[in-house]
């Protein structure tokens, strides 16, 4: 895991960023991307079925951001949204790469955390990503809420904090996004 950023670096960057250094934010995002991508690659390499649990991924990623607690909440919310976006991108990139990889038979990456009622199969990360991109055209807030929940593993409360809306509002958007995903992902081919 030598490629991953040292937590100390992250701390310093977070401090610089909270002091208004915009370049630090970009640097943080880049580092985070590398981190998460490395984690994703590592996980997928060892999972026979190429399944991934975004929850686990999220836990690990957040743990690399230990100063999160100490940040001002506005910074924190901002940062969480950024982190989830980065996480989703890293995961999707890796999924795309694996699908294209002829040697391993072009496997799909499955998100095993996504659990849709009676259907128990995991869902293809790329499908979920595409559906959220489409949803973004119709309803940007619902898409963002769903992304934070699905790819970031955030709770309703955390999502509310990250987006800056009330819990009740987040619940409503989440219900919409969830229904959208459920309907599309379980639709008979």
């Amino acid at each position, binding site marked *: 895991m030598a490629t991953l950023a040292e937590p100390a670096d992250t701390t310093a960057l977070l401090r610089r960023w909270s002091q208004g250094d915009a370049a630090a934010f970009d640097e943080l995002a880049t580092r985070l991307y590398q981190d998460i991508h490395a984690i994703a690659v590592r996980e997928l390499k060892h999972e026979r079925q190429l399944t991934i*649990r975004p929850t686990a991924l999220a*836990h*690990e990623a957040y743990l690399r951001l230990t100063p999160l*607690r100490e940040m001002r909440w506005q910074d924190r919310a901002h940062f969480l949204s950024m982190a989830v976006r980065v996480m989703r991108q890293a995961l999707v990139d890796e999924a795309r790469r694996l699908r294209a990889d002829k040697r391993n038979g072009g496997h799909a990456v499955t998100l095993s955390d996504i659990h849709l009622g009676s259907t128990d199969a995991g869902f293809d990360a790329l499908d979920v990503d595409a559906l959220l991109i489409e949803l973004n055209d119709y309803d940007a807030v619902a898409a963002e809420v769903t992304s934070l*929940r699905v790819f970031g593993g*955030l709770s309703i409360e955390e999502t509310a904090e990250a987006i800056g809306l009330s819990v009740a509002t987040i619940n*409503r958007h989440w*219900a919409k996004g969830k*229904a959208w995903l459920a309907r599309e992902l379980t639709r008979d081919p």
Partner: protein
Amino acid sequence: MAQTSNRAQVYRIFSAAMDADPVERPGLIREQCNGDEALEAEVFALLGEVAQDTNIMGLLMGSEATSVADLSGQEYGRFRLQELIGKGGMGVVYRAVRTDGVPQSVAVKLLRGVIHDSTSARFVREARILARLDHPAIARLIDVGVKNGEGWIALELVRGSPIDEYCDKHQLDTWARIKLLVMIADAVATAHRSLVVHRDLKPTNVLIGEDGRPKLIDFGIAYALTGADSGREPTTEVRKHFTPNYAAPEQAKGEPVTVATDVFGLGALAHRLLCGCAIFPQAKSPLNYLLCVTQQDVTAPSRTAAATGVDKRRVAELRGDLDAVLLKALDRDPARRYASVTEFQADLHRYLDGLPVSAHAATLGYRLIKFVRRRAVPVAFVSLLLLVLTVGGIFYGLQARDVIRAQNFAARRGEFLESLLKSADPSSGTQTGTVAALLDAASESVGQKFADEPLVQASMLGTITRTNIGLGRYTVAHAANDRQLALLRAHGGSPFAVGDALSLRGQLYRGEGKWSDSEVALREAVALLRPMKDPSALCTALDNLAAALINLNRESEAEAVLREEIAIAKGGGAPLEYALLTADNTYSILLGNDLGRYAESAFYAREGWEIAQRILPVDHIDRLGIEQTYAGSLLNTHRASEAEPIYRDVVARRARVLGASHHDTLVGQMGLVEDLIELKKYSEAATVAMDTEGRVESQFGPDNNYVLMSLQFYGVATCASGDAAAGLEALQRVAAARKRLLPSTNRGNYQAMNGIGQCLIKLQRYAEAENVLLTSAHGLEAIRGPRFRPTQVAYGALRDLYLATNRPQDAALWASKLID
């Protein structure tokens, strides 16, 4: 719904409906769809998903998938799954029954996460180490295996309810709850001494049975799994698995798990039971918990309890000592927690006994200023504390001096054990996480870590030696033991320490069957330990010495040693009852098996049996051992019919606990066969003997003594039941093998000859029979005396022979030698 424009429209109408009052939704949808039935159907389908509350991420944070394929009816090893009884963090649990006819229900846990072929053998090996855990409050591990790349584990089936439910349902008071915690701590501490960490202490893993006693399930399973996974990164499932509300900070961070992790887990469990809530009640999601536990200190339990509306009396009970105890167990820094579960347990005990708890001192050590400011602490107490602090930063100021020393030592040991487990860090590259590797790493690092404390180092090496012996790793155990002894001798180790080290060495040689070397080491150990005031250590050495002497065929010396051991153990009262029962067992076997003094043998067997019934759990390995010895003594004293049910029971329990093919189970079966022959139940005897023979041979090869013994019993039983030719053939095979393997004067050879002689009589080949039987009768008489049971068998056979050949005078001569 093929076109994107249409999809957008569906979502727009759906979204508008969602924003409207639920009652108005159908009307709104119909209006907006304007008669387009397909569109309407799609929107309603989406709405249906909401109504169904399809739980996309319902289990996202922490919990696991809910529905699983029903595997009832499938077989795992010798178990058939019957019914799904639970789902846990690491997999599903089924109630299962044995497929081999033994009536036993077990819990079979199917572990998620793939185990690769290359690691499955290690997984099984590691998990079997867990089977050594023997404590009444730990659900026993019965078997493990790998099927289709998934590990499974068969555990004792425990019927009971989770401890939190139980306590709340029965409205147990603080006192009763702490008593339960003490019992649990005892079990966890026992496991730690076997280098097993539970890692997942939480209410659902502590069940309270109908007898009101706790039983821990899932012991160390995660550990066995990570052990199995080493060599590559552990699977996501296992490594990242942590239980919100109970996981320690280091666990949440994915750092190595140590004994301190269980201290924390136990603390969190205590918090739940005593305060009625989790340590961070504000943490609503696992992520939140993770952030809390890694970045915040736990608030004083009394304050948390007060804030969550627990009644005032309980809050008052928590304030003070219990606050201090729980906070010490729940410290974020593993190094500041109790160094061991035993220390935690001791403080709970002290609390129950109304004594000052040690946690206060430590808490004050770290938080002196805060503490004094926050509370009205008696002035005298504070000044005493300051004195202690200035004296050198030792925080155990409230204890007597020798207790301080003991605790310091225990703390260092605890830290060492911790570092030992720490070296299992899978990210450290080359390390493999097996217990064996841990021990080797420890063995390497102990030299540097305790470089200026050679005697502490020696003590650690002793622990390493002992554990290696337990694992059957004699070569490395020897190396550690050599270093231990060299250190003790070079740095003036106490006679006791040297004696103890030599005793270990003797035990090592015993394991390797090097009886002469064993004797030398143990003689020296006994000489050093005899003047000491630790009779238990002396008894252990004497017992091993007796075993060596028995195997060197020096029975009378062995007898003297055992008599000394029994005398010491008898003088030691309750603490030495276990030593006494061990000595009784060995002595009874010596008297019955080797010396033919059956009445005495029966006396000691009975004495040991009575102790075992009183002090050992029902399936304890030593209790089963003495029960078999007791049955053997009954058989030897013509009470075969009384012995029969005991043999059957011992065999059934061993098969259940250890498995049908376990060495001990097979030894029990052989006893049963001998008993059945005595009771003239020949056909059953032959069947059981054949089963035993097959199982032993497949494990230990055709020349194993137990193979030959069971074949011999088979021959005798078959011959007696009428098929003399088949019996003779089996017995001749035994004799031929023994001739090849043993000196001709061995009693096994003579016993085979006894059987051959009996078969020959049946076949009316009298001349051959006479020849064989005279040889065995004289031979057995010479090596074991006339009263030895096999000798008596030879006499009886000769009497029968002469009666059959019409030589009454000779018959009378041999008959007169028979005891009955």
